[in-house]
C-alpha cells in the first residue's frame, strides 16, 4: 500500500505576541513545527504500513525551509519525503494548494492519503477534502480510528457533533485525521541520519500543471486586509496566597458577578 501524508510546516501561533505599542503581531523568534494533527496522520499511516506493508511518503507544498518538516516525518519513520516547491506555487489558497497536492498524489499513485484535520495557522480543514475531490476519490473528515483495512476498502470511525459514525470507503481514499487520534512516535537517531538524504524536490514542471492553475493566479480568493486583534482587556487580578484566603477572595468575586455587579 502506498500512503501519502500531507505535512505542513507551520509557525507556533502560541508564541506570537501582540505588541501593544506597534499594534502588530511579533513574529520574530517564533519557531515552526509540523502542524500537530499532521503528526497523528503520519502515525496512522505508519501503523497501517507496519501492518500491511508498503510505503509512507510525506508530502508538503511549501518554500524550501519546510524541508525540515519532511525530515522530521522521515526521522519518525516515513520512507521518504517530497517537497513540492516552486516560486509559482506561492500565494495559494485552499483550491490551488489542493490542486497541486492532488497532482502529486496522482503521479505517485497513492492508495491512501492522510492529512491533518486543520492547520494551526490557517485552520480551514479544506485542503484534505479538496485533494480528494480533485482526484475524484472518496474522503471522510475528522477520523480518530481505523477499524479495518483491506486491499479494496478501509473502515474508520469519526465523531460528529451528534455522535460516533463508522464509515467504509473504497480505496483509493483520503482521510483527515484529528489531533490526539494516536500517540505519534518519536524520531529516532537512525531516522534522523536517513532523513538527510530522503527528501526529493519537485517543481511545477515535474508535476506538469498549468501555472495559471496554481499559486496566486490559481486562487479564486483574495485577502484584502489583515487586522491584528488586540486581546480583549481583562482585569488580570491574580491572587497568590493561602488556599482558604484564595477561596474567600474568589467566592466574593464569583458572587458579585452572579449578582450582576461586575
Amino acid at each position, binding site marked *: 500500500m502506498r500512503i501519502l501524508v500531507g505535512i505542513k510546516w507551520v509557525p507556533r501561533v502560541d508564541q506570537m505576541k501582540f505588541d501593544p505599542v506597534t499594534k502588530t*503581531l511579533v513574529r520574530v523568534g517564533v519557531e515552526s513545527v509540523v502542524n500537530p494533527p499532521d503528526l497523528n496522520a503520519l502515525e496512522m499511516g505508519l501503523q497501517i504500513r507496519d501492518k500491511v506493508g508498503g510505503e509512507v511518503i510525506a508530502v508538503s507544498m511549501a518554500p524550501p525551509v519546510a524541508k525540515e518538516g519532511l525530515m522530521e516525518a522521515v526521522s519518525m519513520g516515513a520512507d521518504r519525503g517530497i517537497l513540492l516547491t516552486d516560486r509559482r506555487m506561492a500565494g495559494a489558497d485552499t483550491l490551488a494548494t489542493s490542486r497541486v497536492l492532488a497532482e502529486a498524489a496522482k503521479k505517485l499513485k497513492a492508495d491512501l492519503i492522510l492529512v491533518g484535520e*486543520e492547520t*494551526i495557522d490557517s485552520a480551514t480543514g*479544506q485542503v484534505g477534502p479538496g485533494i480528494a475531490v480533485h482526484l475524484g476519490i472518496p474522503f471522510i473528515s475528522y477520523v480518530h480510528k481505523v477499524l479495518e483495512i483491506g486491499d479494496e476498502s478501509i473502515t474508520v470511525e469519526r465523531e460528529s457533533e451528534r455522535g460516533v*459514525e463508522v*464509515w467504509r470507503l473504497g480505496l483509493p481514499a483520503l482521510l483527515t485525521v484529528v489531533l*490526539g487520534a494516536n500517540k505519534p512516535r518519536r524520531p529516532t537517531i537512525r531516522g534522523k541520519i536517513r532523513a538527510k538524504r530522503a527528501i526529493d524536490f519537485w517543481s511545477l514542471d515535474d508535476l506538469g500543471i498549468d501555472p495559471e492553475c496554481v499559486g496566486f493566479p490559481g486562487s*479564486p480568493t483574495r485577502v484584502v486586509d489583515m487586522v491584528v486583534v488586540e486581546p480583549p482587556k481583562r482585569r488580570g487580578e491574580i491572587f497568590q496566597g493561602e488556599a482558604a484566603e484564595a*477561596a474567600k477572595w*474568589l467566592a466574593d468575586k464569583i458572587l458579585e458577578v452572579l449578582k450582576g455587579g461586575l
Partner: protein
Amino acid sequence: MVCKEWPPVNKDEWRGVWVFLETWGDSIEEASLQLLGEGRRLADRLEVPLTGIIVGHDLGDLPKEAIYRGADQVIVADSPDLLTYNPQKYSQALYKLIVKYKPEIVLFPGTRRGREVASSVAIPLRTGLTADCTAFDVDERGNLIQIRPAFGGKIFAKIVTPDRRPQMASVRPNVFPTPPRDENRSGEVIREPVKVDPSEVELLEFRETSQVEMPIDKAKVVVAGGYGLGIPKGLEMLRELARLLGGALAGSRKIVDLGWLPRSRQVGQTGKTIRPDLYIAVGISGTSQHMVGVQSAKVIVAINRDPKAPIFESCDYGVVADYREVIPLLLEELRKRLASD
C-alpha cells in the same frame, strides 16, 4: 489569463443568497438556523432573495421551518438516495442545483458535515471557499467580504472572491444569534428531484450520544476543566461547582480527546464558541486555540497552579493554586454564602 480548468463565469448571471441547511432527523441544526438570520441581513442589503437549501428525502414540514426563520423560499434536493447523510452524494446534489440556479452567495454551517459538503462543492465550481467566518460585509462592488480569524484568533483576515461565483463560506456556529420564529411568514417550497451517482463511501453505523445535561452554549455560567485535573474524577468537584452556580460543565480539547467529557462540551477553535457571563477555567493552560472559544465571556476566572500559565494573561480573576486544595474550600464558602442569602 485564467486557469483553463475553470468553467467560465458571468458574474451578472449569479443572484441571490443561499444557506445550506443541515438537518438531523426532523429538525434543522441550530448553526444553520443562525445562518438564516445573517443570510437575511445580507440578502436585504443586496436586495436579493434568501433561499434555504436542504438535501434529503421525506422531509414533511421541515422546509417550512426555514421560512419561519427568515428564508423567502426553500429548495429541497430530493431523492431516496439522499435519506441519510453522505458527503459525496450530498455535495453532488448541491453542486447540480448551484449550477442550475446560480446563487451569488452560498453559506454553510461550520459543523463537521457542513464543512465537508462545502469543501466538496467548491472544487468542481472552481470557486473560493472561506472557512469558519465570524462576520460578513459587502463592498462597493457588491462582493461579499468574508471575515475570519487566523493564527489562532490573533488576526482577522478579510477575504473576497472577486471574479468567481458563487462566493462560498462556512460560518462558525454560535457567532450569529438564532433568528426568531415567525409562523406568519410564507414562502415557496420547491422540490427538485435529483439523481446522484452511487458513492464509494458508506455510513455503516451511527451511535448518537445522549445530550441530557445543559448545553454549554446556553449556560450563563460555565465551569471548565483541563488536563491539569490529572484524573477524570477531578471533574466531580467541577460538576458540583457548576451545579451550585446553576451552570454547565465543559472542558479543554485535551480532556475531551481523552474521553473524559463528550465532544459537545469542548470549548475552543475546534469545539464550541460560548459567551457566558462567567467562565471558570480550572487546570487549563489557556492556549489561543482554547481561548478563542471564550473570548466573548463577560468574566473569566482561572485556577491554575502554575503562575506562568498563559491563562493568567487573559483572565479577570486568577488564583494560583492546586485545584484540589482550593475548589473544596470554594465550594464550602459558596454553599455557606448562598444558604445565608
